[in-house]
């Protein structure tokens, strides 16, 4: 068993070899590049669904605007004060830093969990794209609340898209990444154009005099759709905050921010949050209201922008599923001995395609996003405690590395224990991560401190 783990750990290290060393000063990037990267990353296919769901969950316009303003601010501050300072001090990816703290065993578990979560996320992207392509072939989209596929046509459509996305991810990840950079400003304009174009249909006058009245009565009117929970200010604030929880509080964006010249570069995340996670969500809310509150991203975009809208949804799904599939493949490569990259990406693509057939993943996207962040959040708390709190309390840092532990069991127990505690909390799913973060932070510190005394 120990030999097997050592073998897996050696393979993982080879995979991530290219970023083993801390980033050299010459390779640090300008603030403009961070602004561009954040702006491009946060206008994805899921934005068509998230903003629309806020309307279906009966949010009021005031709660939406305030919740998004403050929630996104908290997300930006999380990148700036939690993730960026550790990134510029260590200049390491989470993979390598976590290995120092928790040993290869925990990094292996983290990789597998990440791969599985990435597959579901990519599956949701494929489903969103399928709603657009389904329009071309006249295939009905599963209704709200559906768990299983609603027709053979839907399954065939998903398989066709899954095969296409996977093939393209295998054939040219790098070229597609560059193509995605071309797509992202245009996709953002699809959101903006769609929202402006549906204003006359919603009854907004050209002088915008009744814009707020229309927003509060026809779009975010506080009435939830049948079968949907009613959301308020706190739901929106927390959702905007935790939407990228794995990246900021969970620290996976160490990979990005380790190239920052200063920790204040975390503030550049505002270029992703406010256009993507505020404006794009507002736009998709307007578009869904204009089609009678039907959860159908393809139809929303088609009605608002025409065939370019359909292409926008399709491309948004494709360009975001592509790196997600790649990352899932990379994470899975650690447990597939000597498999070439194409075979692993193919495996991830097949798993993703099968998951995408089940509409529950995109029709319950808000809950899934919450669970995704929640599952990886304790790792961020463990790293934060080890990096900042241990020196203050004079607890020895990096014991796993110094003593050659294959697995820091304390870290693993804290991770699992935090998740068990979170899933039993009698509060809404959206709010559980915050007390969970506190539990992970305190319990890891206390357990590691008590280990010192024994």
């Amino acid at each position, binding site marked *: 068993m120990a030999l097997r783990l050592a073998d897996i750990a050696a393979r993982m290290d080879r995979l*991530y070899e*290219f*970023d083993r060393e801390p980033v050299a000063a010459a*390779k640090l*990037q300008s603030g403009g*590049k961070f602004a*561009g*990267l954040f702006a*491009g990353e946060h206008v994805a296919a899921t934005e068509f669904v998230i903003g629309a769901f806020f309307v279906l969950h009966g949010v009021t316009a005031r709660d939406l605007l305030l919740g998004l303003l403050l929630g996104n601010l908290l997300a930006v501050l999380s990148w700036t004060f939690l993730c960026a300072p550790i990134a510029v001090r260590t200049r390491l*990816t989470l*993979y390598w830093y976590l290995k120092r703290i928790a040993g290869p065993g925990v990094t292996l578990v983290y990789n597998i969990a990440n791969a599985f979560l990435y597959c579901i996320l990519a599956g949701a992207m494929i489903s969103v794209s399928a709603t657009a392509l389904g329009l071309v072939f006249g295939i009905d989209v599963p209704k709200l609340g559906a768990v299983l596929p609603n027709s053979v046509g839907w399954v065939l459509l998903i398989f066709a898209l899954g095969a296409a996305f996977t093939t393209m991810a295998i054939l040219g990840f*790098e070229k597609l*990444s*560059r193509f995605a*950079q*071309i797509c992202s*400003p*245009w996709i953002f*304009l699809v959101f*903006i*154009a*769609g929202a*402006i*174009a549906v*204003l*006359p249909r919603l009854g*907004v006058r*050209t002088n915008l005099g009744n814009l707020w009245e229309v927003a509060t009565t026809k779009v975010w009117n506080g009435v939830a759709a049948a079968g949907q929970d009613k959301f308020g200010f706190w739901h929106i604030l927390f959702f905007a905050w935790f939407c990228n929880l794995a990246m900021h509080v969970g620290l996976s964006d160490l*990979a*990005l921010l*380790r*190239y920052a010249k200063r920790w204040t570069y975390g503030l550049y995340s505002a270029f992703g949050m406010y256009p993507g996670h505020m404006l794009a969500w507002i736009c998709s809310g307007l578009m869904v209201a204009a089609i009678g509150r039907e959860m159908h991203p393809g139809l929303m975009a088609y009605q608002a*922008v*025409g*065939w*370019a809208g359909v*292409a926008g949804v399709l491309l948004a799904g494709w360009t975001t599923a592509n790196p997600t599939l790649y*990352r899932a493949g*990379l994470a899975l490569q650690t447990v597939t001995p000597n498999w070439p990259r194409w075979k692993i990406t193919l495996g991830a693509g097949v798993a993703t395609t099968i998951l995408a057939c089940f509409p529950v993943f995109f029709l319950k996207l808000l809950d899934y996003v919450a669970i995704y962040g929640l599952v990886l959040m304790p790792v961020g708390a463990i790293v934060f405690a080890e990096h900042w709190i241990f020196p203050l309390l004079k607890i020895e840092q990096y014991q796993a590395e110094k003593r050659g532990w294959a697995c820091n069991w304390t870290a693993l127990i804290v991770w699992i224990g935090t998740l068990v505690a979170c899933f039993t909390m009698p509060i809404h799913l959206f709010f559980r991560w915050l007390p969970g973060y506190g539990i992970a932070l305190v319990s890891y510190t206390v357990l590691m401190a008590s280990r010192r005394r024994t």
Partner: protein
Amino acid sequence: MIKRLSRLGALMSLGICLAAPVLFFAGKLSEGGYKLAFNLASAGWFVLASLWLMKRTKKGPSSWVGS
């Protein structure tokens, strides 16, 4: 020169993508006209931006951001 022209054309295409729905909302353009203008400008963006950005340095963000 081609790069400079393609950059100018690409940015103009994006401008048209934004202007078309505004003109439709203001009642200065029909719905069909707006969608046609958006489609054409989108095609222009993809062609010209490919010329502009694909030929730009290969050191794009994806090459410096690790996993």
